[in-house]
């Protein structure tokens, strides 16, 4: 454990970018947790007297078409956007781990059925499938989460399946089997923990993608409904005003969204260095 910590410290001290990504990540988590408490104004309070004002000392990010404070809305939206992504990624991680481990370990028909289902999901362009799922299941935030979880499922299942497959006949698995461990115990206690480090990299990279995906869905009018503050919907509302020069409506939520995704992608790259220096590209 101490060597891992040392290694972590080494990586962070060697790589300023990863350190920056870690700090940014904690910043986002803090904003998501505090949310309403640190927003300077009520994110839903409209005031037509100050509508469409460019950034000022009072309203750092300006005000939108209803006179709502853009900064407060961006801050409050953090919890919703990150929440959707975390729940979706957690769901696909858990289900994908179970399916992938079983498919890789048991092989045969289990593998064939799981792989065939995953291939079918992969036959769709993923964002299109998410859109179809939300349209069919009903337009709500829960269904955005389910749809995002389903389109992420192939990634986890496939990676875990292949990782388990190469370890299935490994010495430590044989040893565990010979000492009388059952299949489920071997999978849960011996195989899965060995696959976990690799999965953390995918988890981080995937978080960024899940955020993009959820914001994209709400940009086209699915899931989150106005007047709820959410990055994608704020960009969509600001889009009308871009051509007349009111840039701050779309720019700030869009830039924060981009920063969040960028942060998770950098974090993923950093974790990759941490776990396997050979995978560095």
């Amino acid at each position, binding site marked *: 454990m101490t060597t891992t910590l040392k290694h972590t410290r080494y990586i962070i001290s060697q790589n300023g970018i990863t350190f920056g990504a870690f700090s940014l990540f904690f910043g986002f988590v803090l904003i998501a947790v505090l949310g309403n408490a640190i927003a300077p104004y009520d994110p839903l309070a409209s005031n037509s007297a100050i509508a469409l004002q460019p950034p000022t000392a009072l309203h750092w990010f300006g005000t939108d078409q209803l006179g709502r404070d853009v900064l407060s809305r961006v801050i409050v939206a953090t919890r919703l956007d990150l929440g959707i992504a975390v729940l979706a990624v957690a769901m696909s991680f858990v289900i994908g781990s179970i399916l992938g481990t079983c498919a890789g370990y048991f092989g045969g028909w289990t593998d064939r059925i799981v792989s065939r289902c995953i291939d079918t999901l992969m036959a769709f*362009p993923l*964002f299109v499938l998410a*859109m*179809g799922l939300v349209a069919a299941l009903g337009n709500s935030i829960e269904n955005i989460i389910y749809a995002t979880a389903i389109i992420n499922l192939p990634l986890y299942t496939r990676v875990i399946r292949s990782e388990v497959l190469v370890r299935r006949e490994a010495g430590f698995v044989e040893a565990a089997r010979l000492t009388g461990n059952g299949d489920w115990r071997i999978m849960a206690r011996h195989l899965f923990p060995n696959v976990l480090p690799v999965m953390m990299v995918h988890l981080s990279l995937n978080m960024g993608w899940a955020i*993009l995906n959820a914001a994209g869905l709400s940009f086209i009018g699915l899931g989150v409904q106005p007047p709820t503050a959410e990055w994608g919907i704020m*960009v969509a509302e*600001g889009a009308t005003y871009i051509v007349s020069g009111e840039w701050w409506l779309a720019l700030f939520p869009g830039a924060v969204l981009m920063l969040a995704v960028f942060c998770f992608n950098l974090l993923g790259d950093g974790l990759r260095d941490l776990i396997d220096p050979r995978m560095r590209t």
Partner: protein
Amino acid sequence: MARYSTGKIVGRRILGAIPSVIGVVIVTFLLTRSLPGDPAAFFAGPAATAEAIEEIRQNLGLDKSLPEQFLIYIGELFRGDLGVSLTTGQTVLYDLLTRLPASLELTLAALVFAIALALPLGILAATRPNSWIDHGVRLLATAGVSLPTFFTGLFLIYVLYYLWGIVPAPLGRLDILNSPPPQITGFYLIDSLLIGDLGLFWAAAAQLFLPAVTLGLFALAPLARVTRASMLGMLSSDFIRTARASGLPPRQVLFGYAFRNAMLPVVTTLGVVFSFLLGANILVEKVFAWPGIGSYAVEALVASDYAPIQGFILTMALLYVVLNLLIDLLYVVIDPRAGVES
């Protein structure tokens, strides 16, 4: 080791795509049947009586069992019957076919832009490791996949249209001064050249420029990343060392040997890139009011008009299956080893 003829390989790949098509049709069917609420009541409209709804239920075959409904659905698909759009009043098939060229033109232009930029960048980065261009490409590869396409599109509109005024207003495939060329291929760029109207060609190209760049930027990152990594791997391999030691000119080593082999992972990545492109296409079409099938589906979504959405999803999925098949075939063409089976 036996060597199979190219025709045989192609046939086998095409057969291999059939399970995907079946899977796609089943999933689309299931999506059709899990519409929120009662589909019959939905198709009947808000003012319908109970008898009218019941009649529609029988017309749609919704009173039958699921397998029966599936067979009916398959029959409809073979007849090209995808239902009628409530918003346009046309059949969904007609709407999709008239709008598909716009989407394809946009996607292909974006892909050409992305490849034209990603390959040289990747090669430059790989041949000069740890130079500024290498770092630039690595930054681009991480930043590029973090870009929300809808946001980059708006940002580019603001800078290039509102501030600098160097691109036309982001309102579709042609400005109102021009009328579209006669439908030959449906691609405005090609059609305008076929009738020899250069002015129209430039007008269409000017409209296409910004959406294609927006979409292309998204595809650029993974392609540049894979090109760089795969070229790096190739350049340090034994056969390149041998080629160099044999005194072959550097150009030939780089492009004749390393590049051709390095293309294989890039071609594989194209599959993922297409998945991204077709999805991001919807967002870009909405931002630029591009009259393709993506904005058609978004409009239908807003109006809760479900038949077009289902038609759209099926079209996109089939398109993706075909593209993947083409990528497979391209792989066979490029890789001299792909025809050999152990």
